[in-house]
């Protein structure tokens, strides 16, 4: 996809880079938050059983 502002190939590459970099950050965040949610659910179940 070309850059929405300048339509240049360099701009398009930059745009791809930003999407990929932000994607990595979001992916790892999702994994870490997922792990925390899993821990919270286990904690919740432990409490309900106790």
């Amino acid at each position, binding site marked *: 996809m070309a850059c*929405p502002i300048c339509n240049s190939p360099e701009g398009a590459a930059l745009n791809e*880079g930003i999407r990929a970099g932000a994607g990595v*950050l979001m992916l790892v*965040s999702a994994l870490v*938050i997922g*792990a*925390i949610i899993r821990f919270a659910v286990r904690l919740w179940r432990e409490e309900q059983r106790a």
Partner: protein
Amino acid sequence: MRWTDHKTVGLQYGVTALCFLLVGFLLMILMRWQLAWPGQPIPSWIAWLLGESNAPGGIMLPEFYNQLVAMHGTVMVFLAVVPLAAGAFANYFVPAQIGAPEMAFPRLNALSYWIYLVAGVIMVASFFVEGGAARSGWTSYAPLAVIESTGQSFWLGGIFLIGLSSALNAINMIVTIVRCRAAGMMLMKLPFFVWSQLVTALLLLLAFPALQAAAIFQLMDRIAGTSFFLPSGLVVGGIPLQGVAGGGNPLLWQHLFWFLGHPEVYVLILPAMGIVAEVITTNARRPLWGYGLMVSAVLFMGGMSMIVWAHHMFLTGMGTSLSGFFQVTTFIISIPSVILISSLVLTLWGGSITFNTPMLFALAFLPMFGIGGLTGLPLGLAASDVTLHDTYYIVAHFHYLVAPGTVFALFAGIYHFFPAITGRSLDETLGKIHFWGSFVCMNLIFMPMFAIGLMGVNRRLWDAGASYAHAQPTLQWQTHITYAAFALGVFQIPFIANLFLARTRTRRDQGTGVREQGDSPRSLIPDPRSLIQAQLGMWLFIASEAMLFASLFSGYVMLRVGSSSWPGPIGEFPWLETLLLVGASAAFGAKRSQLIVSNALGLTFVVIKLVNDAALIGKGITPSTDLMWACWFTLTGVHAFHVLAGAAFTGWLAGPSFKMATEERERWAARIEATRRYWLFVDVVWLAIVVGFYAV
């Protein structure tokens, strides 16, 4: 008094943060003077204090004004409001509210305060270095910040330390709330204040590493000559920037900064909500309306706040798909905010309300936060944000959230909890003078800024727009705002006097419900040997470090994918280092011999890394050669530092700490288990790095 006592640490945070609040306020007064009377001399005694280099002939230089702007925001956010909300109140009251006699890791708790203090001193001391303090705004946007004077390096160092302090505080808070509750204190019985502090701690833990990673990149740009944030062909003052490889991306800074920056907004707001909930329920004599709904809302808000960051960057031309995503998430996050405010208002319904000083501040928080929140909606839409971005409208919007918003909640908390802390009450008359004066002045300061912003006046002009035709009608408002700011300062005098006069009042030793300073019974301190406590602490630390490396790695991916001419390949696969590192974690165990082998392998890894780096530098390959090597040296350098820390700790376990293996077996097992996980983590990070550089 014990330095590790949670109440001591809470008070230390509180007093220090209030001092920084005063520093931030004084910086604001200087800014306001300049904006009201640009180009005119400031009073001679103030000019003498600022010095000829900052205000020659008493006329403030634009460079110094920029320092005031950057440091006002930095001091207020990182050194005053967050430490007061998430450091002082949390440390003092969370253990008491959950029935824990102490924090989970008291020594780490004390350490977090001292690191915060050192960071604050470094930042404020930067005013006295050559070129003055940081002057690229509290956001320190690149590439401007990269080419700034030495003060910017102080800012970056300070920010890194604040991140470290926040992580230690957050780990402590989460483990304390999750594992140190009194019997019967179920999760859904926790006071809302505790829930707000729990989510705040999670946000600090997971979001701050992104700014630490950004600070590492920027320090590398400034010190090692890399160009993470410096694009090719950069021209400074009409002269092309020499001596840098270029090819970097300034937007990388913005993404990493706002990945922290937006959750930081909720770090400012959520503790305030918790305090207001305490004050309102007490003074309305009503339980919290919709407790379960509020807990769900605060959890949802915390999670969502991690995926809204780029709404601060609509002007960067991020493309419709990313822009659309962040617009949608931004509007979704407004829903829990409305739930929280509505629940607090509904709590008042049918209550028997006492309008004392803390209640007045808490009640004022509701509409002030409401104004701040509602005026944020146009900024969440890319179309309207384009017009409003970087105008005074933004200043008004976020100050309504933080100044008459969070700061009012903090005042409510101070008035509300002061008797519980000191056994003495604060004077109501002085308190009400403080409240009404502050309430009126805050609105006189910030409400006109909405209009000034809507008229298109940029917020960064040192002369308030005196040189622009469209700003002319707003100049007299700037003068009025400055008078209101002075009056706001005057109305803080009753508050300060109230704190000191309280010493003259009779101490009420009964009915405070909170133990006296330092009297935590030692026998009740939660067992620090608990395996599960140490394990959870280490998991949280690993989560935080995972976010640090993810941020560094996302920078690498952003630059690599975004480059049309990425150099490569990087060389031969580092088998030896990989084997050494995997060996270090495989050898790790509870026996002394295992610890020594693990320590030796870890140290050898670091030595080999240093030798290899020296060989590369000898061949003329340095971090400044190109972006690929910049990424390699930075990522592997940060990783090597982690290996060194792991090896040092393992060596300590094998040496001075080994007697614990026989004397305190449970505590020893907890340390071994936690350290084993750390070694596995550094293995995984190394494998991710080498795969990222060699296999992809």
